[in-house]
């Protein structure tokens, strides 16, 4: 019984740690704690420049064959993520939850790109 209890706690701690380690999941959790729901509505016209950028990076990644290009894209994604994380920190610091919500939406697109890039790097 004590083992079960310890296992439960251990897994909760792991979950908490993983949530807080990653800026996106950490940000979403903070948003939730503040009582704001993450973005659910479709992004459209207002964000077309941003969406086009995401589209282009996705296309570039899908077409990429050599490691050089993949590294370039990896660096780009990392830079963008760092930039967004800085902006997100600033938003939370001034309690601008709507801006935080928007930024977290943008970060999700880059998180997906990061995952795709990782699978691309794994030799098949």
């Amino acid at each position, binding site marked *: 019984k004590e083992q079960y209890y310890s296992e439960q706690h251990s897994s909760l701690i792991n979950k908490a740690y993983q949530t807080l380690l990653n800026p996106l999941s950490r940000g979403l959790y903070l948003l939730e704690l503040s009582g704001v729901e*993450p*973005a*659910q*509505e*479709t*992004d*459209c*016209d207002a*964000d*077309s420049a941003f*969406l*086009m950028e*995401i*589209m282009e990076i*996705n*296309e570039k990644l*899908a077409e990429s064959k050599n490691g050089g290009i993949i590294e370039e894209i990896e660096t780009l994604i990392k830079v963008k993520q760092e930039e967004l994380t800085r902006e997100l920190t600033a938003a939370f610091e001034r309690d601008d939850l709507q801006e935080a919500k928007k930024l*977290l*939406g*943008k970060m*999700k*697109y880059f*998180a*997906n790109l990061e995952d*795709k890039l990782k699978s691309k790097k794994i030799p098949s």
Partner: protein
Amino acid sequence: APAAVGYHKKVVDHYENPRNVGSLDRNAKNVGTGLVGAPACGDVMKLQVEVDENGKIVDARFKTFGCGSAIASSSLATEWVKGKTVDEALKIKNTDIAKELCLPPVKLHCSMLAEDAIKAALADYKLKQDPNKESEKKA
């Protein structure tokens, strides 16, 4: 590729044999481009339509980066809009798409994204046809 386990065979079919993947010339006057995204899951979808002088959609293409259900929904959307008039295509509902693909509740938002993409593409087309807005854009 993501695991196909748990996806309905109709979704798998669209994923493995996608119809109408690609692009149309976004600068052509009779082409409407819709670009939409779902911030909750990070899926991004581009849908384009080519409309003839009679207001009928004669060609459609899509490019989607996201889950199998999102890809299938947009693939089906391009199939469905072809041959329809602009007004007929505006009537396509996400519920029809979801039903056709037997999407589970957790993937219903993918069909909604496809409906939004159709509407965005048609709105873009209509905007391009409006002579007043055309000259506003050029100015």
